[in-house]
């Protein structure tokens, strides 16, 4: 039987489950007293370490992570205990997600912490782990992800950036182009997929290299996206020298390493806790739009759309929890996890679209100095940017292809 206990905080549905016996008749959701204590601990940590008026953002940020570290690995929640992580239960992870979505905590980038670090842990040698992980953890080094190329988007294995071993065997010489490299213009290092051999199938002969961005032979050019911002770039390599010690794992095996990471990236992209918070914000915004004696949330078609969105979110949240639960039980993430990215990104897009609709005539105003309510100002740019959620980290069509093949066993899918 399913039952809820003390689940509705003021605005956000907070719940968790006991992950044991999930598949038995004892299935239930509530917070144990330990979990409640943990939640309070998290909340008071966030409260105590809020940025103070006039405090410098960047020094506050570094200080925040330091204090989180002293809590016992709270600065690297997803890292395993062996590498300094907190060793939380899935319930605790879930609580953390919920609380961070609501709290004002310092920004963090996924590239080093969430993308490269797991690869280093699994495939890097001890020396590489020692060399790179502390700086990632201290947020000292910014990483960027050099996978996609003009000819290798959905078909990532088609990548052509060449890495050739020097005659003395000490370096790879890298030549080629990457595209869509997020924050390459501020990155210190790149983790990069290169081709060392093209004699076999595409997935073979790919080599995983790490190298600094600020060096001769690397040229970064901005790509401006629809929201008017510069986050992505093209990156060109001309005879970039990369010491062989910067290769992860074995030469030619990079695809295997990267693919594991991609799966990781995809579930991370669902962002459901954030969406729950944004949904409440959306409702508040709509309520601030007066219509007659009421407000936009009284408008039947608008209200229905918000309702449908919330229903999808309720279901997707449990899909995520089921997936976490099966992972916690030691199994592979179940088939349900394959739809998380699809659903999660679609939900984010619908929230953004409904924000545009709530803005009414002001949705077309552009820039800070324009007109309309505060939520409308960034709303349209947010919507335009939301369009890429279904493109990056595995475009939706390709994701469905994977589900069709791997989950439903329909072998005639077109992508690999």
């Amino acid at each position, binding site marked *: 039987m399913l039952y809820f206990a003390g689940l509705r905080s003021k605005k956000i549905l907070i719940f968790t489950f006991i992950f044991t016996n999930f598949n038995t008749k004892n299935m239930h959701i509530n917070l144990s007293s330990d979990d409640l204590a943990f939640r309070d601990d998290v909340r008071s940590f966030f409260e105590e370490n809020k940025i103070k008026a006039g405090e410098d953002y960047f020094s506050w940020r570094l200080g925040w992570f330091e204090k989180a570290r002293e809590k016992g690995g709270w600065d690297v929640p997803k890292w395993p205990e062996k590498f300094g992580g907190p060793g939380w239960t899935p319930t605790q992870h879930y609580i953390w997600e919920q609380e961070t979505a609501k709290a004002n905590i310092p920004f963090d980038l996924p590239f080093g912490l969430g993308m490269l670090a797991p690869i280093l842990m699994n495939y890097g040698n001890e020396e590489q782990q020692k060399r790179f992980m502390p700086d990632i953890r201290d947020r000292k080094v910014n990483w960027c992800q050099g996978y996609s190329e003009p000819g290798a988007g959905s078909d990532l294995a088609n990548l052509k950036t060449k890495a050739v071993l020097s005659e003395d065997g000490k370096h790879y010489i890298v030549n080629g182009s990457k595209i869509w490299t997020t924050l390459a213009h501020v990155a210190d290092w790149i983790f990069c997929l290169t081709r060392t051999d093209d004699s076999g199938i595409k997935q073979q002969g790919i080599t995983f290299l790490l190298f600094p961005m600020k060096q001769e032979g690397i040229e970064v050019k901005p790509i401006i996206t629809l929201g008017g911002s510069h986050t992505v770039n093209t990156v060109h390599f001309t005879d970039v020298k990369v010491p062989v010690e910067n290769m992860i794992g074995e030469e030619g095996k990079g695809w295997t390493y990267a693919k594991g990471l991609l799966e990781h990236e995809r579930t991370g992209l669902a962002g459901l806790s954030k969406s729950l918070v944004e949904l409440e914000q959306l409702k508040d915004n709509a309520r601030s739009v007066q219509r007659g004696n009421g407000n936009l949330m009284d408008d039947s078609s608008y209200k229905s759309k918000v309702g449908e969105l919330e229903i999808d979110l309720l279901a997707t949240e449990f899909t995520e929890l089921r997936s976490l639960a099966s992972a916690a039980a030691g199994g592979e993430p179940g088939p349900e996890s394959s739809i998380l990215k699809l659903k999660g990104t679609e939900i984010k897009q619908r929230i953004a679209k409904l924000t545009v609709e709530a803005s009414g*005539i002001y949705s*077309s105003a552009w820039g800070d100095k324009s007109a309309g309510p505060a939520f409308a100002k960034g709303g349209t740019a947010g919507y335009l940017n939301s369009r890429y959620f279904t493109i990056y980290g595995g475009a939706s069509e390709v994701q469905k292809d994977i589900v069709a093949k791997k989950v439903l066993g329909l072998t005639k899918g077109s992508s690999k």
Partner: protein
Amino acid sequence: MNFELSEEQKMIQQSVERFVQENYDLTNRVKISSEDPGYSKEYWGSMADLGWLGLAFDEEDGGFGGNQIDTLVLMEQFGKGLVLEPFLANIVLGGGIIKRAASPAIKESIIPSLMEGKLQITLAYAEEQSRFDIEDVATAAREEDGGFIINGKKSMVLNAESADKIIVVTRTSGSQVDENGISLFIVDASSEGVEKQNFPTVDGLRASEITFEDVKVSSEALVGEKDKGFKILQAVVNDAILALSAEAVGAMEVLYKDTVEYTQQREQFDHALSDFQVLQHRMVDMFMEYEQCKSLLFRATLETVEDPDLAQRTVHALKHLIGKSGIFVGESAVQLHGGMGVTEELRIGHFFKRLLVIDSQFGNADFHLDKFTNL
């Protein structure tokens, strides 16, 4: 039944098409949009010289006596290049009010210079609280010393930055949302008490917030009858909906065709993207939406030409479909272009933004669905 354009209309269509092809590549558009005044004075002059600005004015006012079909022909082609020149604000909105309701004296002082592109005009109707309800008017005009004093604030006024004259929708009697009691005034943009705050819009055009503080006008500034402005406003808004819908149809055509072309060229997994059935079907959907919008555009336009009152419901239907389909086609074009779709470098993103803005003007898809089902 005849859906053929006249020989004259076909000629105009071709000449607009050529104009857009020659002058409106993306680089040029971005350049024009980013520099003041946000459109090309040279192009505006050419449009006047080619007679496009006078098409929809009556012959007795010096125009060519055209109707909404002529405007459709122009706007559909404008939509294919995302033309920036202020045709909608000057000719459809401002000019539309003048030709319908102004005194002979005002007509004479305005229409000829409008058609020559020498005078600019716009319509200020929306307000902070009004959202899409055009009858929701708080800006007040109070009678005093034989004239009127206007106080209030107007929102998202198109082309106000360049306008010499502003037609202001005001309340002279009744409650804030009554259709009765709305009056239209023509005000010099340089009048004392008129304050503009200009800014760009998402689609690279310009709009303004305008405050009117004790702005004095004479009784001659009243356009049409006092308190009876709503009908005129509604007719002009309907024309604007037809015009914008025609522009949207032009924009959708570009989007679906660009997508078909791009997916045939781009290869992934050793196939052209266009080989993948799921993408084929999506493009068929885009194409269907475009064709359906075009059909409803023809229907609403022809019905309006015949009997504007009877056409009202179809106009609501049209704006609903244009809003919904425009965004579907835009989102789909972006999706099928992958990363390229979200960049400013390809034109599809710009067309998508224009369609998004069109949905937010003169009532969005939800608003018109509601009107349609309740009429």
